[in-house]
C-alpha cells in the first residue's frame, strides 16, 4: 500500500447566501485575505502535502474558477501524469442534468479515482480557508486504523448555515455526528467537511450508496457509519474558516488582521500559492494614513485606511476614509468618500464624496463592476 494521497475538491457552496458576491463565481473562487481565492488554500494544502492529483467537481458558475486555475501552473500542478482534472457539472456531453449530491458526483468520477495510483483520498469542500498539512492527518489516520478521518475545529456556529457537529470518545473516535442550523455562542467541535479516507473504502461506500439511490455523503454515509466506531476526529487547532454567507465571510476575513492568524495561515514553510498577476508594489503617497490593515500589491494610497483589507490594484484617493471594510481588486475609492463596514466586489468605483455605512453584523455589499 502506498501512502500517497489524491484529492477531490467540491467546488460548490451556498451561492444564494452571499448577496450577489457569488453571482459571477462559485464560493470556491471567492476572493479572500487580500490576494487569494478560497480555492488557493485547498489547492496549496494538497500540493504541499504531496497530493498532486486533484479532481475538482464543479457545479455552476464555474468559469471564474476555471479562469483562476487555468492548467494549475501557479500551484505547480501543470503535470504530465497528475495535476488538475476539472469535471464539469454534466457527466456526459449528451446529458444536461447536473448531479444531485456528493454521492452521485463521486459516482460519475469513479473511473478517475479508481485509475489513480494513490491509495488515499482527501475529500474537501471548497468553502474552507486553512493551511492544512495532510501528511500529518494521514499519519494519524493510518496509525488509528480508522476507516475515515473527519477534520474538525472548535468554533461557534454564529450563523444559520448547516454545520455538522462532531462528538468523540477519549481515543478520538467519533461517537456522535449531527447537523445543526441554529446559531449558538457555544464552542463546539465542528466538521470542516474535509475527510481523509482509503481509496478502497471510499469506492465501496460510494458504490453501495449509489446503488441504493442515496444522495448525501454526510447524512447517507457518514452518519450511518458512526455506529461502526471507525470514524476518527482530527482536530485542527490552527486557524480554519468555513465560509458560507456574507456574515462569515466578513468575520473570517477580519480575523486575518490578527498577527497570530496570519502566522497560522502564511507563516510556516508551507506557502499558499495563487494566480500570479505581475502587480507592482503598493505606493503610499504623501497623505496616506494606514492602520491595522492588510494591503495587497498594486495599490495607490493617498487616504486613510483603518482596520481594513485592500485587494490588488485598489486606488484610495485624497480625503477618503475606509474603516472596517474590504475592497476587492481594481476598486477605486474617489476623493473624500467614506466607507464603513462595506464589502466592494471587483472593479467597483465609489464616486467622490459618497458615504456608505454598514454594520458589523450586516456589512453592505457593492456588486462587481458597479459605480456607486
Amino acid at each position, binding site marked *: 500500500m502506498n501512502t500517497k494521497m489524491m484529492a477531490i475538491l467540491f467546488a460548490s457552496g451556498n451561492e444564494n447566501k452571499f448577496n450577489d458576491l457569488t453571482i459571477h463565481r462559485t464560493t470556491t473562487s471567492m476572493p479572500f*485575505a*487580500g*490576494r*487569494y481565492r478560497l480555492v488557493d488554500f485547498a489547492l496549496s494544502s494538497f500540493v504541499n502535502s504531496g497530493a498532486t492529483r486533484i479532481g475538482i467537481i464543479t457545479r455552476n458558475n464555474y468559469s471564474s474558477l476555471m479562469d483562476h486555475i487555468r492548467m494549475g*501552473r501557479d500551484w505547480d500542478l501543470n503535470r504530465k501524469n497528475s495535476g488538475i482534472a476539472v469535471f464539469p457539472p454534466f457527466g456526459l456531453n449528451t446529458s444536461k442534468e447536473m448531479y444531485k449530491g456528493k454521492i452521485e458526483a463521486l459516482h460519475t468520477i469513479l473511473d478517475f479515482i479508481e485509475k489513480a495510483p494513490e491509495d488515499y483520498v482527501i475529500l474537501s469542500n471548497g468553502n474552507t480557508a486553512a493551511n492544512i498539512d495532510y501528511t500529518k492527518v494521514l499519519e494519524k489516520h493510518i496509525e488509528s486504523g480508522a476507516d475515515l478521518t473527519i477534520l474538525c475545529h472548535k468554533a461557534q456556529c454564529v450563523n444559520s448555515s448547516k454545520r455538522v457537529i462532531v462528538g468523540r470518545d477519549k481515543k478520538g473516535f467519533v461517537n456522535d455526528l449531527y447537523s445543526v442550523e441554529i446559531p449558538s455562542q457555544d464552542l463546539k467541535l465542528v466538521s470542516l467537511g474535509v475527510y481523509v479516507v482509503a481509496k478502497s473504502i471510499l469506492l465501496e461506500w460510494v458504490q453501495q450508496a449509489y446503488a441504493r439511490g442515496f444522495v448525501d455523503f454526510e447524512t447517507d454515509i457518514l452518519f450511518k457509519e458512526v455506529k461502526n466506531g471507525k470514524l476518527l476526529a482530527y482536530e485542527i487547532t490552527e486557524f480554519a474558516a468555513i465560509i458560507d454567507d456574507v456574515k462569515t465571510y466578513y468575520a473570517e476575513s477580519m480575523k486575518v*488582521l490578527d*498577527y497570530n492568524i*496570519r502566522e497560522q*495561515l*502564511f507563516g510556516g514553510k508551507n*506557502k*499558499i*500559492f*495563487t494566480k*500570479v498577476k*505581475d502587480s*507592482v*508594489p*503598493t*505606493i*503610499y*503617497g*504623501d497623505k*496616506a*494614513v*494606514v*492602520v*491595522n*490593515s*492588510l*494591503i*495587497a*500589491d*498594486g495599490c495607490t*494610497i493617498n487616504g486613510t*485606511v483603518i482596520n481594513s*483589507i*485592500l*485587494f490588488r490594484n485598489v486606488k484610495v484617493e485624497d480625503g477618503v476614509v475606509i474603516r472596517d471594510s474590504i475592497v476587492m481588486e481594481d476598486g477605486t475609492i474617489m476623493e473624500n468618500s467614506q466607507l464603513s463596514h462595506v464589502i466592494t466586489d471587483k472593479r467597483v468605483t465609489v464616486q467622490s464624496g459618497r458615504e456608505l455605512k454598514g454594520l458589523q453584523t450586516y456589512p453592505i455589499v457593492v456588486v462587481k463592476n458597479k459605480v456607486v
Partner: protein
Amino acid sequence: MASDKQCVAMLLAGGQGTRLGVLTKEVAKPAVPFGGKYRIIDFTLSNTINSDIDTIGVLTQYQPFELNQYIGNGQPWDFDRLDGGAFVLPPYQTAKSGEWYKGTANAIYQNINFADRYNPEYVLILSGDHIYKMDYSKMLNSHIKNGADCTIAVLDVPIEQASRFGIMSADSNNRITEFEEKPKHPKSTKASMGIYIFTWAKLKEYLIKDEADKNSYNDFGKNIIPNMLRDGQKMYTYDFVGYWKDVGTISSLWEANMDLLDPQSGINLSDRRWIIYARNAAEPPHYVGANAKLFNSVVSEGGEIDGDIRNSIVSTGVVVEKGAVIKDSVLMPNCVIRKGAVVSHAIVGWNAEVGENCIIGEEQKGPINGEWKIAVVGPNVSIKKGDKVAAGEMIGAEGGK
C-alpha cells in the same frame, strides 16, 4: 532542430560587479534585488519578451546558480517557450579548447554556436545592469530599414557627463561617422547605452577576426565597434528617449530605487502595456500595524510594517518594528529592522537584521562629486543592538566592523 528566429538576444551579465561590494559577493550583479520586488535582470528580460524576442542567452561566468535558479524555466517572463527561452550560459569546453570569457566580444565569440542553433538574421546584445524600459523591436525595425550592419542605441546626455560614456558622432541620417570611448573633449552628446543590434553574419566575421588578433582586448567598445567603423561598415545610431540608468555603483543603485518614488523621474512601472515581470514570492499582502506611518514610499508583499517609513523602498517580506524610522532608504527582501533603529540614506541587504536602536547611515543633503554616501548593510549580516554604521560605510558578512 530548432526553428529559425529572426533575432536572438545575448545578455552580457558580466563579471563580479565589484563596485557593488558586499551586494555581489555571492550573487551576480543582474540578480541583485531592485525596486521592492524585482531583480535588476527583470528589466532586460521583460524588455526582451515584450519586444517579441523569445530567445535569450545570459552570459555569465560568475556565480550562475542564483541566476539559474531565479530564471528557472523562464515562466515568470513568458520565456517557457517550446523552442527558444532563456538560457544561462557559463563558459564551456569544446573538443579543442576551453577558456574563461576574456572580454565582452569573447563571451559572444564563445557562444557563436548557441546563436547559430537558431539561425538568426540579427543578434541583440544587451547589458544586465541597466534599469529602463525599451522596445527593441523598434530598434530592430530601424536596423532593418537602414540595411545596417550594426545599430547602436544612444541616449542624449548632458555635455558635461559625456566624457564618461562612449560617444557617437553621426550624420543627418544617423549613420555613425566617429566613435570615441570616454573622450576628454566629446564631439557629441550621443552616448552609447551598450545596446547593439548586429546583422549576425557580419558580427560573426568580426568576432572571428577579433579572436585571431592576439593584441585585442576582445571588447565591443574597444575593438569590435572601432574595427567595423574603420572598415566602413554601415553603422547607425538609434535614439532612445526615456528613463535609463546604469546601476553599477551603490550610489546609482540607490538613486535608481529613489527614482521609483519620483513621478517626474520617468520610470513608471504601473503601465500595463509594458509589464516588468519578476518571479513571484508567494507571500500574503503586507500588513500595516497600529503604529506605522508611511509617507511617499513603496511597499511590497509579505511585509509586517509597524514603523515610520519615509521616501523608502520596502521589499518583499520585510519586517519594520514599532518605533523604527526608515528614511530615504532601500530595504531589500526579508530584512528585519528592530525597534527604535534609525535607517537613513542606506541600503539594507536581503535577510539582514538591524538590531534595536542601531543607527544606519545618516542624512545626506546631496551627492558629493556625483556620489551619494550610502551606508550598506550586506546580505545576511546582523548588526548588533545599538551599533552604528556610518554614512558610506559597507558591512559584509565576514564581520568587517
